[in-house]
């Protein structure tokens, strides 16, 4: 622990080139022990390169890297670096053998890590069969196996549902509390608030993170409150799920969902991985048929005719990579029998470019343009903003709001809980059921959390964790969801820690996690929440 202030790993004036392309240009980063450092940026901003340089996987063209010996680094690559054809135990055994950890120390360490990551009992399962969140937690456990001094995690929460993501951040905080220097990259700016320091990357350069964070808050405040107009409830019901159930063999993916999307409203569909969001969307699109219950599109069961009135942007964007921008658009125009749309200037300028050569942001806007070209009455968007930078994200939401203002109904799924505020109405799913729906303020209601400001956040964190009060770290403050101030005070007092406590309104994320976990823990439904 004494090393914590003495050693700071990091990079200084680092430049990395891939051939002619400069991925990083004079970037500096300091990663002190016992703290979390976040690297934030959109896809292609150089996050991964910076982390790879720090982990010693790429050779810098200029600048210096300060890192511990290779055996003291834990590195999780974006694609999580697990062997999907090996079981959890076999993955663990391989990493343990690779770092020469053996004997009783090995077994104790493995048991502890699997317990912390909630993976106890999954030993025989193939890593490839785990959910995205569990895979990331396993990758984290593997990286922590040899107690590294420097832990480098590349986008551990990308594509991970909010519940798992909250757990991962708790694990990350625990690693920092244990003295390790932790460097985490993310595309989610709001996640950066959990870190002690933030490095914001854009096109291989460092930007002023504080300014962008402030700008983001300002932009959100500026957005006109999308107050649903009074007449909304009379609007046309475009998509209706009526007690929809879908089973796959023994698994019930969607267990009786009632949902409707009306003309002119943006409905946000939120839920952990495996909550049934994707299956529900596929039911509504007519890609799957309900095992029981009803799904109606425009008042009828989904058919070829309903598909003409539907616009869909899947998570993978559904573009043909080997066709140009213009060819993609003319194909979908022909499929829907509509005219090719007028393009924004920068898409029009790229009309002869192959989609695979297009930057991700443009690709996404192309997918939107293709889905909107035939003026669909219902727009279904699956994770439309994952991996998108802050500015581009705002632009995509503008497009969504414009479509809704034009009378289309929009159903959108997202893992970005801070985007919940963009939706007129939210539908929260867990374990195949709707656990809450309504406007954001109604769902959060009067939920509360206890904010803890202690002299030593890491000690407070450890004491609270030991007392079964898992806390989230926000910068150097702690938040304990639930608002049971007395319990928090007692736990801290028992641990001999003095801290300032205050009860604050719960965030949407805390509410979401509570609802999702409540559903997972107990099966009986909550009729007050499910009805509007």
């Amino acid at each position, binding site marked *: 622990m004494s090393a914590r202030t003495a050693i700071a790993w990091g990079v200084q004036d680092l430049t990395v080139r891939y051939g002619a392309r400069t991925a990083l240009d004079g970037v500096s980063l300091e990663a002190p022990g016992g703290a979390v450092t976040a690297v934030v940026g959109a896809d292609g901003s150089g996050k991964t390169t910076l982390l790879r340089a720090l982990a010693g996987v790429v050779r810098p063209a200029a600048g210096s890297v300060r890192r511990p010996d290779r055996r003291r680094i834990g590195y999780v690559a974006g694609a999580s670096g697990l062997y999907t054809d090996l079981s959890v135990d076999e993955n663990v055994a391989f990493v343990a053998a690779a770092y020469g950890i053996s004997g009783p120390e090995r077994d104790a360490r493995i048991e502890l890590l699997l317990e912390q990551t909630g993976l106890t009992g999954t030993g025989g399962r193939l890593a490839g069969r785990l959910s995205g969140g569990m895979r990331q937690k396993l990758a984290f456990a593997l990286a922590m196996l040899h107690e590294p001094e420097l832990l480098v995690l590349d986008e551990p929460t990308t594509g991970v549902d909010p519940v798992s993501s909250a757990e991962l951040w708790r694990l990350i905080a625990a690693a920092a509390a244990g003295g390790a220097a932790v460097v985490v990259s993310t595309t989610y700016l709001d996640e950066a608030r959990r870190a002690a320091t933030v490095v914001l990357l854009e096109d291989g350069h460092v930007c002023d993170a504080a300014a962008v964070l402030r700008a983001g808050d300002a932009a959100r405040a500026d957005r006109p409150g999308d107050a649903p107009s009074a007449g909304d409830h009379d609007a046309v019901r475009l998509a209706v799920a009526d007690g929809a159930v879908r089973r796959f063999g023994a698994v019930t993916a969607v267990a009786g969902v009632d949902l409707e999307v009306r003309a002119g409203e943006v409905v946000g569909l939120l839920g952990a991985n495996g909550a049934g969001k994707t299956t529900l969307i596929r039911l509504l699109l007519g890609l799957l048929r309900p095992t029981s219950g009803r799904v109606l599109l425009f008042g009828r069961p989904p058919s070829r005719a309903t*598909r003409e009135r539907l616009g869909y942007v899947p998570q993978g964007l559904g573009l043909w990579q080997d066709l140009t921008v213009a060819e993609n658009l003319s194909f979908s125009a022909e499929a829907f029998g509509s005219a090719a749309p007028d393009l924004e200037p920068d898409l029009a300028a790229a009309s002869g470019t192959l989609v695979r050569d297009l930057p991700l942001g443009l690709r996404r806007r192309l997918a939107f343009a293709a889905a909107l070209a035939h003026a669909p009455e219902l727009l279904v968007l699956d994770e439309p903003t994952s991996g998108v930078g802050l500015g581009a994200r705002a632009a995509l939401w503008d497009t969504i709001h414009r479509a809704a203002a034009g009378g289309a109904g929009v159903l959108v799924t997202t893992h970005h809980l801070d985007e919940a505020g963009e939706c007129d109405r939210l539908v929260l799913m867990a374990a195949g059921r709707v656990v809450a729906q309504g406007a954001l303020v109604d769902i959060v209601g009067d939920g509360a959390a206890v904010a803890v400001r202690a002299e030593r956040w890491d000690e407070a964190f450890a004491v609270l964790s030991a007392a079964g009060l898992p806390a989230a770290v926000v910068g150097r403050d702690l938040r304990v969801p639930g608002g049971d101030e007395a319990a928090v005070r007692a736990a801290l007092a028992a641990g001999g820690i003095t801290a300032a406590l205050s009860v604050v309104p719960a965030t949407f994320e805390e509410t979401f996690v509570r609802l999702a976990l409540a559903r997972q823990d107990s099966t009986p439904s909550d009729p007050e929440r499910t009805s509007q």
Partner: protein
Amino acid sequence: MRAIAVKEFRELRRDRRTLAMLFLLPFLFLVVFGYAASFDIQDVPTVVVGSGAQTIAGALPATFDVVATDDGEDRAAAQDRLRRGEAVVAVVTPAAGNGAATVLIDGTELFAAQAALRSLAELKASAASGVAPGGLSALGGASSPSVRVSVLYNPELRTAVIMIPGLCGIILVFVGTVATALGVVRERQSGTMEQLAVMPFRPRDVFLGKIAPYLLIAALDMVIVVVAGMLLFDVPFRGSVATFALGALLFLFVTLGTGVLISSVSQTQGQALQLAVFTMVPQFLLSGLFFPLYSMPWGVRWIGYALPLTWFIKVARGVMVRGTPIDALWLPLVILAVMAVAVFTASTLRFRRDLAPAGGPEGTDSTDRPEAAGGSADTTAAGTVS
């Protein structure tokens, strides 16, 4: 080092396709090269015609497998039998015991023709040294020049003449199976198959639109090979173009259907390629392309008969090189038609189900998982990053 080797073995154990390839391919090659691949041809199908046919037939060496004898037929009738592919060698005995016997050999059966020529040469040599078995005197007595041997259709026994028709088959397998499977899997892997499913297309439109380009390309490829073969290698085209086209079309439907079936059980292009290779290797080796089926042991021969390429090669070589008429090719054509209908129907049903149209029939289906869409999106995302 040890840790990595252990990990590799564990992974291999789970990757059943690669494992199958690692252990089944050697076995397959063992069977093929042990039993089937033999340049030492036995049992060359032979007909013997003319007076004294019975006697001669009984006296021929073991190389010749006499499939028919006819006292009444003449040289023209015997040649017609070769043209129709009923036999590879025809022995025409001289009329009324004088004049020379004629041996006709079908040059499209390269190795069999060579074996027959070798055997005849040995016969002549032994006849010259006076140890010829008695019955063979009818073949022209002791004087060797009196046996006239003529190789038909491919007198110089050139390899190109028999390989070009076979090559057409290989091209159809390649474009039909490999390219189609990769094309369909690419659509699925990149997640755009789902996009097609939500567009207002009928499943039929998607299916036909998806395979029509491959059908055209395969047809074009085949025309190029045939024309190039004729111009560059002097390969003859003696038969009916229509018969050839019919055989090619039927065969193409089999290979396209196989490609679609492969795509429906493959998640990635790598898996599809692996499976396609798995279906192609036995076709190349056991279809009679190189080694004639009749000289293989029964067990292996039946594998050959079950392969569509076997029947297409019969049609292609017969029509191009020998000018075989359509009525002599009814068996291969009917077999190809049956295979085409079976494979194509299966692939259409499979494709329909994979496309999962809301209006279409759908049973309880354990193969599509709720996570499937998320999984494929993950792979796409990973692909874009790297």
